């Protein structure tokens, strides 16, 4: 009898959920063959096991080792196409997730992989930039800058050496889409970086991966080696090569100039711009630093055209966004949808409400520098303009939901302490401001604070916002000040007098 093929995710979070335990327990079972795929991102259902049926894949959720007989008998499965969390998504960048084996180059190619690069190779560098302009793609790392503008500068700057660098520092707590991409579809990132290299004339690429992602770094190294052996890097007139470099635990190293300093082996401090990296970056050469997901979006744009990409999403926010839902929700996971749904929609439809017994207090979007939203302000559409209008950021798409037990003063103190720890020290507003901010919040938390302290915090926040060198100091006051704005009674109660 031929063994039944069972699909199990090899993603780090799936393994943490129990997939590793299943693989161990079932290793010697001859009636099955385990295929290790990427994860669909519905982590609340993990470990999830799938098998083929005439009507498409069926899945079993939250599987334990002794569920195997049920799965082999085909009893109690759910059609993957009918899982609401997945059914309501629009998967383009994450289209292969849960389906392919991440390190199988032939599977990537058989599902359209490297078509985008082939199109790019048939175009002039200027035409590639035009396609990007038409697509309306903005960077996914946080600053949301139009991708084509950066590329045009790097393309037009004369130099015998140029670089392309993938920012895989993924420092925002609450985000994991870059990690999933590197572990789950590494060839897509490689293809995207090669498209960029072709457009600007770079021959060398680096991937700066955070220390906390050993599995992602390993998968990328393996995929790069495979691509090299398959001669994929030897395209037409110039050779290309790619190297993975590991960081060492500094949030500010996600900022592009600090990242390049770190790549050269120095302290990762932020540099004043200009010059922009596109003009003078790594070793003083024109360099494009982009987020992992920005690169991973490129293959589809080239293969399907800029107009296709521009037809998705909203006026100023084209395409799809990978949102990562975390915190105290029932259904945490990765959600790829076109821009434009409201935050409430996303939480209701995908987040599935609060974890059992929890009540919603606040939602933070955009990582540790993102603003807090109370329940009454969740109707904001997920797009860059609406968030900018509200003084908020989408950042890298992290959404963290806090429950009623959260102490807002302590949370605000945590944010300021984070900035004080992570400040690179280059500019005074951030270096000194964050320490003062933390001290004030510690005073309030210990019951020693006064209402004057709250005013002081607000003044300090304004200075940090306007005078910091980068967004670490510039955005750090937002989560603190929005906490005070929306939950003033908690602060007042502690800061009497």
């Amino acid at each position, binding site marked *: 009898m031929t063994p039944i093929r069972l699909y199990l995710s090899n993603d*780090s979070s799936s393994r*943490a959920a129990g997939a590793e335990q299943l693989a161990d327990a079932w290793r010697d079972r001859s009636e099955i063959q385990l295929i290790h795929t990427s994860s669909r991102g519905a982590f609340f259902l993990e470990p999830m096991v799938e098998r083929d049926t005439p009507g498409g894949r069926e899945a079993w959720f939250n599987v334990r080792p002794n569920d195997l007989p049920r799965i082999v008998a085909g009893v109690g499965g759910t059609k993957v196409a009918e899982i609401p969390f997945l059914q309501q998504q629009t998967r383009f960048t994450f289209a292969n997730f849960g389906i392919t084996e991440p390190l199988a180059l032939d599977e990537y190619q058989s599902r359209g992989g490297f078509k985008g690069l082939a199109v790019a190779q048939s175009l002039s560098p200027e035409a590639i930039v035009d396609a990007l302009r038409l697509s309306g793609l903005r960077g996914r790392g946080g600053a949301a800058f139009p991708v084509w503008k950066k590329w045009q500068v790097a393309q037009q700057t004369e130099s015998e050496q140029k670089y392309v660098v993938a920012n895989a520092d*993924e420092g925002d707590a609450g985000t994991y889409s870059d990690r999933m991409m590197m572990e789950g579809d590494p060839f897509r990132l490689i293809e995207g970086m090669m498209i960029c290299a072709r457009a600007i004339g770079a021959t060398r690429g680096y991937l700066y991966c955070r220390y906390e992602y050993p599995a992602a770094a390993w998968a990328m190294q393996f995929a790069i080696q495979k691509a090299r052996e398959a001669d994929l890097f030897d395209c037409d007139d110039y050779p290309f090569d790619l190297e993975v470099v590991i960081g060492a*635990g500094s949030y500010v190293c996600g900022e592009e100039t600090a990242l390049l300093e770190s790549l050269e*082996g120095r*302290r990762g401090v932020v540099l004043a711009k200009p010059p922009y990296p596109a003009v003078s970056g790594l070793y003083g050469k024109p360099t494009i630093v982009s987020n992992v997901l920005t690169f991973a979006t490129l293959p589809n744009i080239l293969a399907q055209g800029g107009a296709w990409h521009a037809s998705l999403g909203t006026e100023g926010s084209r395409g799809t966004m990978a949102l990562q839902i*975390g915190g105290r929700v029932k259904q945490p996971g990765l959600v790829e949808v076109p821009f434009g749904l409201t935050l409430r929609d996303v939480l209701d439809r995908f987040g599935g409400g609060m974890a059992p017994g929890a009540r919603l207090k606040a939602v933070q979007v955009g*990582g540790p520098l993102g603003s807090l939203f109370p329940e009454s302000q969740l109707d904001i559409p997920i797009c860059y303009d609406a968030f900018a209008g509200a003084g908020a950021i989408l950042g890298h798409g992290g959404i963290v939901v806090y429950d009623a037990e959260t102490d807002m003063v302590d949370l605000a103190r945590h944010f300021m302490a984070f900035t004080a720890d992570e400040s690179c020290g280059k500019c005074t507003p951030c270096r000194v401001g964050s320490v003062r901010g933390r001290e004030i919040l510690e005073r309030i938390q210990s019951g020693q604070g006064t209402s004057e302290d709250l005013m002081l915090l607000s003044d300090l926040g304004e200075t940090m916002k306007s005078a910091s060198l980068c967004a670490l100091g510039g955005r750090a006051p937002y989560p603190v000040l929005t906490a005070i704005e929306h939950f003033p009674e908690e602060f007042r109660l502690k800061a009497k007098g």
Partner: protein
Amino acid sequence: MTTGHNSTLADVLERCRPVPPASPNILKTLLAVQSALGHIPMSGILQIAQVLGVTDAQVAGVLSYYSDLRTQPTGRHLIRACMGESCMANHSARVLRAIQDYLCPAAGDASQAERFTVDTMSCAGNCAMSPTVMIDEHLCGRVTPSDVPSLLEAQVLRRKTEGGRPKAED
């Protein structure tokens, strides 16, 4: 995690010696030292600087800048509780307290300090499985305070039997 560090600083540095025209990369070298020795001894700074052809102040500057570079040996097991926002929202502070309570019954117990180092981290990218605890390289998710004792014992015991030299003292 800190077993099997048999190479010497000189061995590692020999492998990291920059070959012109490549410029010396301090961070990469320090990471290589840490991965070979488990930590970066302060006493090695001068030697590292000499091999790289940079000043010892430059090496010390990079060493003090990055939080993942360690100048002290860790216990045989490194246990990190995530304090990132998704884990915080899932009350990871309670998990951290449970770890500390379980491992440090008597503060200053030297045999425990040799065995375990407890630390925090800012995000492991495991936020959909919050709260997260990392035991050495092993990622654990949905950790509740009451899971902590069995989790720690299971991971430590598992490591004992898995590959490598068995470590009776664990």
